[in-house]
């Protein structure tokens, strides 16, 4: 089972990212589950969403305490919330930021967790280019897909168009396509 935890802020489409990942995995023929860290958070408050992907039916409903994958949609959370809590030793961390990982003041964490692979890329900027709005969620999902191959690009695209029918969906697929290329070109394959 792959357990994914997504951090962001209310209004950034964090829950949608989890849904898209689960839906894409389902389209790939896997079992998948997505749910938010339920709360009464308003726009801007830190929020968390979870996704589990497995070849077996998923019965657990506890929050993801020990993520294999951490998607951080808002890098301002890095030093506000303990986003790394319970991280698996060989976890993948993907951060939405225009800065390189080395410039995110995470040296201590990186040194202490040599097995963790951490990447950053400007998902908001890429979304801004096509959508005119800095939604990083599509970028995080697409980036995860292309880095790990755990969900197929085709299924991610299909999930996007199912979730967002019409023009918005098309634009978001364009964002995803750009992210696939960007990540493939700029980040090392896991």
């Amino acid at each position: 089972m792959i357990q994914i935890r997504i951090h962001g802020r209310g209004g950034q489409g964090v829950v949608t990212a989890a849904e898209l990942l689960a839906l894409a995995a389902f389209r790939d023929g896997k079992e998948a589950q997505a749910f938010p860290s339920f709360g009464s958070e308003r726009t801007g408050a830190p929020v968390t969403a979870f996704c589990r992907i497995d070849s077996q039916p998923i019965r657990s409903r506890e929050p993801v305490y020990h993520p294999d994958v951490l998607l951080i949609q808002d890098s301002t959370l890095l030093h506000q919330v303990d986003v790394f809590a319970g991280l698996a030793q060989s976890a993948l961390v993907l951060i939405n930021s225009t800065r390189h990982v080395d410039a995110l003041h995470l040296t201590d964490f990186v040194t202490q967790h040599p097995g963790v692979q951490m990447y950053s890329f400007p998902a908001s900027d890429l979304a801004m280019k096509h959508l005119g709005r800095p939604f990083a969620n599509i970028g995080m999902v697409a980036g995860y897909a292309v880095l790990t191959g755990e969900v197929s690009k085709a299924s991610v695209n299909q999930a996007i168009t199912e979730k967002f029918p019409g023009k918005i969906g098309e634009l978001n697929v364009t964002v995803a396509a750009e992210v696939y290329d960007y990540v493939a070109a700029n980040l090392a394959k896991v």
Partner: protein
Amino acid sequence: MKQHIEGSQAVAHAVALCRPEVMACYPISPQTHIVETLSRKVKAGEVGNCQFLNVESEFGALSVLIGASAMGARTYTATTSQGLLFMAEAVYNAAGLGLPIVMTIANRAVGAPINIWNDHSDSMSMRDAGWLQLFAEDNQEAVDLHIQAFRLAEELSCPVMVCMDGYILTHAYEVVDLPTQEQVDAYLPVFEPVQVLDPQDPVSIGAMVGPEAFAEVRYLAHNKHLRALEEIPRLSQAFQDIFQRSSGGLLKTYHTDEAETILLALGSVNGTIKDAVDDLREEGWPVGSIALRAYRPFPSHALRHVVKGAKRIIVIEKDLAVGKGGIVSSDVKMALQGVPIIVDTVIAGLGGRSIPKASVIDTVKQACLEGLEEPHFLDLNWDAINRELTRQQAQRRSGPTPENILREIGAPGASPI
């Protein structure tokens, strides 16, 4: 057709296929996604001539359904927590009048302190109101139980609550096999009421009943629940015949044969419990679990049958009878009267506190090795409690307890989960 869908939307889909005629709804989290979806379906003309009323309160919502049901309409609403308590008087009334209303409870804690997260305090507060109470373990079952609930309600002329864990199920996206209209129509006949307001055949409904007859009327309500103990398995089987999957019934067992310790719970936590059972069995612990599907009527006989031979039952319940302890465990103890078996109460998951598999496993081991205090509170922060108790003893005006505890525990949001 299998779909990856939010629990609330799946339930709304199922309810719409049941061809309800009147729905009256009032918003309260976490039930809102269900009624929002239904309101859209009705407005879009996907639910026949169904009337969707936006009403002024939960009390109004159920009252509207009382009138509509007495007029012979198939009726539905959803609520939770404070909303269920606000409609309490009508909850008893609907059952007393024998009106086959179906209501989803998106289970949530009851305040104060105000808390929007999941536990079972709300439906437990209405457990003796005369409604049947069915608990879903996952969203597939939530869908299936709603379809069964309409048939059950109408066959018995008795209202049914379908309880599904708020947020944990209502807001979870997972794979659900959505039924088709043809399947639902094959399973659920047209509603034929046993009593109806009809100008051609006028009757009085809701007359006053004095001491000379009240007990008999109440017994007949009880008798409906006794019949439900037979109807629930029968209708579950009938469901399986059409939908080709097992859903509902009085209870579901998991590795209970030859289990020495059996965990018992209601609702979605049974998923985590099954994972815990698997892990424990791998380590050689002879454990199993029971998921109660029907809480009202309480399946005492079925329970006695499946726990035969076990030494211990650990009831994990998301509620608290303040001043006493367990609610479900009391029912279990009563059902097992005379059976030589230890019944432990574990109060867990209150107000949305997650019930981690690791904690379940630890508790089972602790129970088997050392025994548990009665009741046992899972993962309680004793430090915070003891500090607050000390404070309260030290000063008369110690202030509001919830705020004090929050201060003890630290700012919300600082923790990632």
